[in-house]
């Protein structure tokens, strides 16, 4: 499926999420499902929480107890394949990479989008970070309803409708 459409299956996605009780704190969700020669996630993590090893073709593994949810890997991954997720009562809160204009602004409501590119609900923009290390890839904190925890992947502007 993924290798025909670009859409990861629900089962594949679940393998990248830690147990729900661990998501009280933000954790990296690493959706790299293929052996490709690449390792900036490992080398960028200040806490050694992402392991690839000497063979850079191996898929990254998250050492979930070491992950502090800092978000550095999110804007370091050239494949935009990492986000952070955490749960806050009825909300799911994400930190996602974003590379489009217009940039989202805090307080705006954007569409919440799933891995097929479909609108699944609303996403509230809570924070937008851009520091030089991110090299123009925005790190956007958004919240959605908790039921979108495993479906949400990105945001889309409502401005052009």
């Amino acid at each position, binding site marked *: 499926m*993924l*290798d*025909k*459409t*670009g*859409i*990861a299956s629900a089962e594949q996605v679940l393998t990248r999420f830690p147990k729900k009780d661990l998501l009280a704190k933000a954790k990296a969700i690493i*959706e*790299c*499902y*293929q*052996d*490709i*020669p*690449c*390792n*900036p996630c490992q*080398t*960028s993590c200040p806490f050694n929480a992402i392991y690839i090893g*000497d*063979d*850079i*073709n191996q898929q990254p593994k998250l050492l979930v107890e070491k992950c502090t949810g800092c978000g550095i890997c999110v804007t*370091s*991954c*050239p*494949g*935009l*394949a990492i986000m952070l997720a955490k749960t806050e009562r009825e909300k799911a809160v994400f930190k996602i990479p974003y*590379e*489009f*204009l217009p940039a989202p602004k805090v307080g705006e409501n954007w569409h919440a*989008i*799933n*891995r*097929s*590119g*479909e609108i699944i609900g609303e996403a509230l923009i809570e924070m937008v970070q851009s520091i030089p290390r991110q*090299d*123009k*890839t925005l790190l956007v904190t958004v919240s959605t309803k908790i039921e979108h925890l495993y479906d949400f*992947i*990105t945001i*889309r502007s409502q401005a052009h409708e």
Partner: protein
Amino acid sequence: MIEKDLIIIGGGPAGLCAAKTAMEANAKVLIIERSQKLGGQLVKQTHKFFGSEKTYAKTRGFDIAKRLIDDVTNYSNLLEIMTDATVVALYPNHELTVYQYGVYSKYKAKAIIVATGASEKFLAFENNDLPGIYGAGAVQTLMNLYGVLPGQSIVMVGSGNIGLIVSYQLMQAGVNVKALVEAAPKIGGYLVHASKLRRLGVPILTSTTIKKAIGNETLEQVEIVSLNEKWELISGTEKLIDVDALCISVGLSPLHQLLSMAKVEMKFVNELGGMVPVITEEHETSTKNLFVCGDVVGIEEASSAMVEGYLVGLTAAKRLGFLHPNYDQIKQNYHDQLTNLRSGPFGLKTRIGLAKLQGEDYAR
């Protein structure tokens, strides 16, 4: 006849990296580059690169170009650069003809490194010469170098990394990518690139190809069609898509023409992209002191082209009597990096191709 020590043909990632290590060893270098600027295809690449830190992973392509150019311009006492200069002939005796600003000049070098890169393949279909139909390189030049959109809505043909990445860049520029079609049953490039396109709502249609382009003066529609497992058109599955642009990204083939002209031993190796020179482990062709690196000896990622360049620069300099102070150590290091980059499933084609080119033990 102008005589030089080391001439590098092509100022892309492979040529620049070769120049760097050769000059570290104290060799004098002339880089001859066809375009107005050094950097090759890197200058058009706005995305962050894959690979390892040593090959500038997570750095955007145009920034990698800047770093590689800085690396060589640090050696201003050893370096000569000719831009807007095309090598139009290469002869077996290390002589070459350069065309620059309307003038042809003859050069002769003690050693030559050919780092000419690759050119795009095209696709045969009805009306494929309508205005509005581009190769992916042209789209990137227009859009990322000159800030000109190739159209308002577009269909991409080809799901290799270039097709996937250029589609994403088109969406960033505000072009509506209506579909990406791929004749093979599976996506060819990295799936992370495919996923980031799909989440933007771009349909990726595998087992699908373009049947014809439609339009009076310029492109107005494309007709796509599904393919069965034998790659035959399935009639009745044709669909029309309204677009004013079409981008073809169906692979690259090595720019071997100068090498063929210099009569070095060549071989057709499909896995490497077409005609490639037969080389020794040190990337020397059948002509002594004529070396090659980068896509001209097999289509790969820029990361491999850079490492090959570093290696060949070392070797060519040594041949001219300039031994790099850490020759053995860094040579081993570059070899290990190349092996690592090529060791995964995406390196398989290169491994098979090099085995065909050089014998089994080279590929390990």
